[in-house]
């Protein structure tokens, strides 16, 4: 990798001031990533015990999404969206359209999905700014 690739924003932070939206986005990225940790490790243990693979996959998705969101990358939103879709599909496959039974599969993930969508403007501006800084070099 050379300067100007995806590692760049991290470095550029040192001499950059953040907007409130970017701070919130980074905090959100941390939360999403941390939520993924118990899912990944607990989920791996569950696979070892012979249980469902969903939690480990979802945990990996959350961690990846969290890191990318922290970095201000739109890819984080896409990865979260895919994880969210996976939750819906997996949940319906396991319990059908039973509203109560679907709660763990839908409510928390949907709240995170909505918050993630609210960050689209921040992600867009962050993305532009990163691009501009890269170009300026």
């Amino acid at each position, binding site marked *: 990798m050379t300067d100007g690739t995806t590692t760049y924003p991290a470095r550029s932070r040192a001499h950059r001031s953040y907007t409130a939206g970017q701070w919130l986005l980074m905090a959100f990225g941390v*939360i999403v990533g*941390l*939520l993924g*940790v*118990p*899912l990944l490790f*607990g*989920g791996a*243990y*569950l696979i070892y*015990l*012979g*249980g*469902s693979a969903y*939690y480990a996959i*979802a945990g990996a998705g959350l961690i990846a999404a969290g890191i990318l969101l922290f970095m201000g990358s739109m890819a984080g939103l896409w990865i979260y969206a895919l994880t969210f879709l996976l*939750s819906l599909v997996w949940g319906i496959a*396991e*319990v059908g359209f*039973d509203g*109560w*039974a679907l*709660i*763990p*599969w839908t*409510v*928390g*993930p949907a*709240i*995170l999905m909505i918050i993630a969508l609210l960050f689209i403007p921040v992600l867009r501006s962050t993305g532009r700014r990163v691009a501009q800084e890269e170009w300026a070099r």
Partner: protein
Amino acid sequence: MSLAIELRRGLVLGAALTLLSLPAFAQAPSQQAPQHQPSASSGSDASPTPSTGAQDQPGADRSVAVPASREAAGADTPVGTVPEHDATNWVNYGGSNAADHFSPADQITPQNVGKLEKVWEFHTGDKEPPADQAIEYAFENAPLKVGSNLYVCTPSQIVIDVDPATGKEKWRFDPKVKKEALQNIYHAACRGVAYWQAPEGTQECRTRIIYGVSDGRMLAIDAEDGTPCTSFGENGTVDMLAGIGEKVPGFFSPNSAPTIVDDVVVMGHQVVDNQALDAPSGVVRGWDALTGKMLWAWDLDRPGQYGPPPEGKSFTRGTPNVWTMIAADKELGLIYLPMGNRADDYWGGGRTEQEEKYTASLTALDVKTGEPRWTFQTVHHDIWDYDLGSQPTLVDWPGKDGPVPAVIQASKQGEIFVLDRRNGRPLMPVEEKRVPQGTSEGDHTAPTQPFSTAMPAFSQDRLTGASMWGVSPIDQLWCRIQFQKARYEGTFTPPVEGKSGSWIEFPGDNGGMDWGGISYDPINKVLVVNTNRMPDLKVKVPREEVKAKPIGQRPEGEKGSLGGPQVGAPFGINSGKFLSPIGVPCIAPPWGYLSGIEIPSGKLLWKKPLGTPADQGPFGISSHIRIPIGTPNNGGSVVTAGGVTFIAAALDDYIRAFDTRTGEQLWEARLPAGGQANPISFTEGGRQYIVLAAGGHHFMRTKLGDSVVAYALPENTAAATTNGK
């Protein structure tokens, strides 16, 4: 965990979330449903035998001794009575000795029930003591109503006579139950008392309240003014611990209403669960209601002997007991005992032949002699704590050639057995089905268990990994890991031991059905049943890792906590509801139902989730959400001749009315505290009342209080209804 909380907090933002967070009755201290059991014996200290002329020989003629004592008490004739149960009264815990929880009062109907209003609220003043006293309360009382008296019994077993029309106190009697006993029991409760009319000419206490208290006494007080009946026992007290052996306060603790039939007071008692094999005997005894003399004792491991234990011995230690209410049929002269298990519920090794025979059985005894007439086992070799908690319900079962005297027994494992109460033979088919096998070394599993296949079964759906639930994927995952680690092979999954040592017991040991019993409306021929749908997660703890001390040996700081040391068994027990660390059930709701069953077809007429999460929510904050998701429940229902069923029982503080035929909810009212008790109904002064003890329940974690509330139609409506007849 902090992550889970974080996520949970996020979820709380969405109203939907609060819904789910039912921290329900989080951790009941390593135990749950009220139960008890006994164990094998060592005739340790031989307490003085009851001051009775009772004989060791079965069939010995007692008619000589009894009249003599009765004369001493000043009775002209030897016959007393329990008043007939009619629209104006409620004379046994379950209404009458038939325990059908049915009131012939018919003023309240599906059409007018919406107009019900609270007409009085009485505060007993008996509130749970501060936490440092380590006494936990459960106001499980179903009052009695006889004449113009309503007899309430509070958790510390104070009896209060309340005016049924006004809610004003007339008198109270405080037995001053030993504090140590209340600390040592699972929770302080008084399910009820019994009422008896002495024969004409009796010099004192013409009418009596007779009941047992948790420190091992049976008391008789004058039903008119609450003064002790001095001619009963010794100054109104019978020492129930006579013949029991070692006296650990609370280990032996009567707290269910006695049943009186043919002048015989019949009572069992609770024995605290899972403490030690060497526990108080489960002996069931009959006493003369006039004198308090013991007439017979059914000590099941001494078959053929019905008197006090031999000199220097105690009643057989640790045998299956009867901790709940007993039903009786005066005409047949039989009492119906819903039996529990031997001490140390989860260890079946070394049980005697008699213990195996009677564990978790419905057993009929001759009320005059205590001799067993028949027995029907609801669980073979019970190692799940599926003791019978429901009072048996006696009904006229519609048969081809007219009504058959039947007894209906609901069980914790979700089965409803229907038997001919003359002989114990099933009226609805009972099939023996193969069940999962294999348990601890030194113990065994019964190859089959009985299922009442023509009646609906409750809470026996098969769980899978996909059944695991939570408010978020994280607590759901926690539940799923526990599920994967635990042994589970469906209903009757045997207890296991080993590294994880856990198994899932579903239904859990609070049922299915428990002490609230079931109700039968003989007019509409509908059986009303409230059930729990909650699994338990139980762990066998290897002996060397057991830290819990048995009752009587717990240090001061651990007062009030009951572990499951199971002294005498190869392992201890850690038993709890299957909940996530944030207190949410590990399976999706509904966690509780109210159902109506058509008799005699056994057809399920309706089944509705009972209760909302209104008074539960994250961090102890009430969610105020009023959707009936079906919560765990304790307590029972009352059915009335007007075709209306009343029940509280659920985790939200409401009493509700349902159409008995359809299950449609017709009315509800806010309670001042949790309603984990059985409502009763009666008319007084031409007005029908619904009365309920609403004082909350410690392990259900409902709001505590000290209220008794009464509902009735507004005076003008009541009058109009009455005139219209």
